[in-house]
């Protein structure tokens, strides 16, 4: 597939029309006969025990149909998150749900419910929980994460000796790894810097709150939810509500933003699902913006320490990293682990140690947020790379370039190989297009109250998975139906990767249909739409399914006209003899032949290595046409990386502390470009989220009561039109990855971290080398720094 007809070309994804006409349906746009509304009763305290609930008065109100409490839902063990709880672990956690004929009735009835709560000790700042005698976020411990069982860990007073001087305590970690000899590396170094740092939590705040509607019909649950994924979400939802996956129809045609917060599901879906079952009516749970802040997930904060040794030429000899993560009250997400992987791959330290500690906090639950771990770490650590460059007299692009991985780059503590890396190319391309060498001269130039700063930032995320299934069907109408269960997050990658199947089969795009949006439409077992992986993963599954269909078409032609299958080729809606193009079948006719032949040709016989979900979908479609169905067993070795380098120019107002981002260029290394337009939106949109991470967005909690001061969008300070450059730029290296049949890798996440770190670095550049060791860098911090005043937060303090 040297020259492509579809890959690398722009096209209009099929869901776009619905998005501009208002016809595209999101979870709250569905209605069911007899639908009623649920409202939540949520904890007013950050940690409490429910002693008693009295719902009698509420249930007596006309129009109230019932309540759902923790006693009605499947029990889960901590640190897993329950659907409803009798031990709320954060302010705003749902304790009870009530269904009524309308929302006003439901809200009024909720007011009539008496809940007796016993307040319990709570903790917002992870360091407080690690102190001797410090509070635990839940009654059974203070440390947990994926693969780390819930336990109690306290450090000693000695560990905290220098905390007031801003030095991170480095007690015994929950997890650690090391490769190489870091002490030897530091000895060998020309320059060693040692820093503590803080990054703050922030909410995802997708524009669509996690509203959901559920009803039961003939023993099946129909759930309309807002989710990044479709097929992959099915087993989890089924388990959540205690049914067999075959009993679930999950509808998620459009997802109004997720950014990791709606990756594969969330326990709150159990509320409308189980309440509907209990009262035997369809239930809509409309989630408000305030509720979304509480239950809608957040990026964890980091309190960190890093020691980095540099050679004279900037090469990193050794790196020692410690990350304490505010884990939220439940299992959370391994940002702290990912952060180390990100550092290891971006800088390729000759020796590295990482230690990590996920500490439970009575704050909204955490989940992945666009570059979870990698992006807040890039924002924290990239300024230190600049600091070293300044001390060593090196160019800031050059110091990143000398440490950047080549194809022989390695990842993490186990030094896993990677599939390819063109990060140096991305830096070179970006520096040339941005005119880095010329613009460097603008650094520190002052005009009135404004000073110019120039910044570069680099970020990484893994970008590909393997082992999922592909499913395509050529029907007697001559069309190719590409069943795509990955989800529709808004990246359009579901459509761009579907075109790989059309490319393989030489099928004109106007004769292809993508079948997506509901598990009821016979989805194959597909990757979740998370972790920047769709482009790599889904192009592989669609490739193997299309190759299977192609082989079957060749066999059918050989049966029809004799010869060997290899004598035939497939293109332009026909299978034909290579030596005599006139001899052949239309794909419509071939589909009819496949139905007559049955067996593997029409999906009556299936490969044995398919996931059960794929097998069920394929069986449901069997006999309707020629089926291509296969598991992705293509070779792949090691980590599939995505990189982005961002270049920015800012103007910092020394009087107000306002940072005006005047220019931003993001350059992606994501292998072959599948769809230029949507790649552009991923890079520029990702950069915009990075601006929020760098400058504005953070959780603020009242430490006395454990309540959030940043619930609404206004206080969350998401970037607006007026916070971004008037025109944004993007580019891509566009060199193929050898481990993908079309050379593609994902890209969704790294632009955010690249842009956020570039912005923070540009501020430090404007201020002539003032480093904040904290993100976001807010206006007050800049003003204080300019006036050489102390900052308003204590060293290492988070959620302030």
């Amino acid at each position, binding site marked *: 597939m040297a020259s492509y007809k579809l890959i690398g070309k722009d096209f209009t994804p099929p869901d*776009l029309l619905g998005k501009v006409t208002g016809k595209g349906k999101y979870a709250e*746009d569905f209605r069911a006969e007899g*639908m009623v509304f649920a409202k939540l009763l949520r904890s007013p305290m950050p940690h409490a025990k429910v002693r008693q609930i009295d719902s009698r008065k509420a249930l007596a109100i006309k129009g109230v149909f019932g309540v759902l409490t923790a006693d009605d839902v499947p029990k889960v063990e901590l640190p897993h998150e329950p659907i409803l709880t009798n031990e709320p672990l954060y302010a705003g956690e749902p304790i009870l749900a009530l269904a009524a004929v309308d929302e006003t009735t439901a809200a009024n009835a909720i007011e009539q419910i008496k809940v007796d709560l016993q307040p319990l000790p709570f903790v917002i700042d992870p360091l407080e929980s690690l102190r001797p005698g410090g509070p635990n976020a839940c009654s059974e411990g203070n440390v947990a994460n994926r693969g780390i069982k819930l336990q109690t860990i306290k450090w000693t007073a000695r560990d905290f000796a220098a905390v007031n001087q801003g030095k991170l305590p480095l007690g015994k970690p929950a997890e650690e790894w090391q490769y190489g000899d870091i002490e030897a590396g530091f000895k060998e170094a020309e320059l060693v810097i040692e820093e503590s740092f803080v990054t703050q939590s922030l909410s995802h705040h997708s524009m669509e709150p996690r509203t959901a509607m559920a009803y039961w019909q003939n023993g099946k649950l129909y759930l309309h939810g807002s989710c990044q994924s479709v097929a992959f979400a099915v087993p989890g939802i089924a388990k959540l509500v205690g049914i067999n996956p075959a009993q679930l129809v999950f509808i998620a045609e459009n997802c109004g933003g997720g950014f990791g917060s709606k990756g594969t599901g969330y326990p709150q879906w159990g509320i409308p699902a189980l309440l509907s079952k209990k009262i035997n009516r369809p239930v809509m749970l409309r989630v408000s913006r305030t509720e979304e802040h509480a239950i809608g997930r957040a990026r964890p904060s980091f309190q960190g320490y890093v020691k980095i040794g540099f050679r004279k030429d900037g090469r990193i000899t050794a790196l020692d990293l410690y990350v304490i993560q505010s884990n939220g009250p439940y299992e959370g997400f391994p940002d702290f682990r990912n952060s180390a992987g990100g550092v290891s791959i971006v800088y390729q330290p000759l020796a590295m140690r990482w230690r990590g500690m996920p500490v439970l906090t009575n704050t909204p639950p955490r989940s992945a947020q666009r570059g979870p771990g990698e992006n807040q770490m890039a924002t924290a650590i990239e300024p230190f790379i600049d600091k070293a460059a300044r001390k060593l007299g090196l160019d800031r692009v050059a110091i990143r370039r000398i440490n950047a991985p080549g194809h022989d780059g390695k990842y993490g503590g186990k030094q896993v190989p990677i599939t390819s890396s063109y990060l140096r190319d991305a830096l070179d391309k970006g520096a040339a297009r941005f005119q880095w060498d010329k613009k460097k001269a603008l650094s520190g130039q002052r005009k009135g109250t404004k000073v110019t700063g120039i910044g570069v930032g680099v970020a990484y995320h893994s970008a590909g998975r393997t082992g999922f299934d592909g499913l395509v069907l050529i029907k007697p109408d001559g069309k190719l139906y590409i069943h795509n269960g990955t989800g529709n997050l808004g990246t359009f990658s579901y459509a761009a990767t579907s075109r790989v199947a059309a490319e393989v089969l030489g099928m004109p795009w106007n004769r292809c249909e993508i079948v997506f949006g509901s598990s009821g439409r016979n989805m194959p077992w597909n990757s979740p739409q998370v972790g920047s992986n769709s482009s790599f993963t889904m192009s592989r599954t669609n490739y193997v399914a299309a190759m299977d269909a192609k082989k079957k078409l060749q066999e059918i032609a050989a049966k029809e006209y004799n010869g060997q299958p290899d004598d035939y080729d497939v293109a332009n809606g026909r299978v034909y003899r290579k030596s005599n193009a006139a001899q052949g079948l239309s794909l419509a006719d071939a589909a009819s032949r496949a139905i007559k032949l049955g067996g593997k040709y029409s999906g009556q016989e299936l490969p044995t290595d398919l996931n059960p979900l794929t097998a069920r979908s394929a069986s449901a479609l069997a006999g309707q046409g020629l089926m291509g169905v296969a598991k992705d067993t293509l070779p792949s070795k090691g980590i599939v990386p995505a990189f982005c380098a961002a270049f920015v120019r800012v103007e910092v107002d020394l009087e107000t502390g306002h940072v005006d981002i005047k220019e931003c260029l993001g350059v992606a290394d994501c292998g072959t470009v599948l769809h230029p337009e949507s790649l552009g939106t991923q890079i520029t*949109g990702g950069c*915009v989220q990075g601006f929020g991470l760098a400058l504005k967005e953070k959780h603020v909690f009242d430490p006395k009561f454990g309540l959030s001061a940043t619930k609404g969008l206004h206080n969350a300070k998401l970037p607006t039109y007026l916070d971004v450059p*008037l025109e944004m730029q993007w580019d891509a290296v566009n060199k193929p990855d050898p481990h993908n049949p079309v050379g593609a890798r994902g890209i969704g996440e790294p632009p955010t971290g690249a842009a956020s770190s570039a912005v923070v670095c540009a501020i430090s550049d404007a201020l002539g080398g003032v480093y904040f060791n904290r993100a976001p860098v807010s206006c007050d911090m800049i003003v204080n720094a300019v006036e050489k005043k102390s900052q308003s937060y204590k060293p290492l303090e988070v959620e302030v």
Partner: protein
Amino acid sequence: MDAMKNGSGDTVAGVSRRSFIKGVIAAGATVSSVSYLFRGNGFAQVNPGIAGAVERMVTLTVNGQKRRVDVMKQETLAMTLRYKLGLTGTKLGCDRAECGNCTVLIDDVPHYSCSVLTHTARASKITTIEGLASADGKLHRVQQAFIDELAPQCGFCTPGQIMSAVGLLKVNPKPTRAQAAEAMSGNLCRCGAYNNYLNAVMRAAEAS
């Protein structure tokens, strides 16, 4: 129904039953007899004499059609559009005037419909995302520009963005990019698609 008094004493004239029904059919949605949100029919009728109560059946002019609808006094236009008139293209992102996802035009001016009481819009011309394309399905030039520039990502804020853009181009058909950004700045987009949205607005302005 040919001429009916509404709460403010205005007379709704010139809408025959037939044309009303036609309008409803053309809009592809019916006026729901069941009120989903806030107090529904059955409940409020229990106590029609609430102090300060206003007439509940009102006529709204939505997308060029007169729509009779049962509205509570505290009901917002966003809820009426979404839950009474079946116009779910108007999205609710915050329900408190922070995000702009629910933007509609009221007498050609963009408004957050989550923060407009339906009763106050009785005498006005309301345009939603569903009312932009012509009857034969031809897209409004702003909608077409949003497609041509691949402006949306997740799409949830898109209807509101488009309504703000349409409102802008009505008063300023040839805005500068900076003017467009200023005019659109009441519409948040968490995907950060601002650059492509502005590209689309500028393309639509050129097409006018």
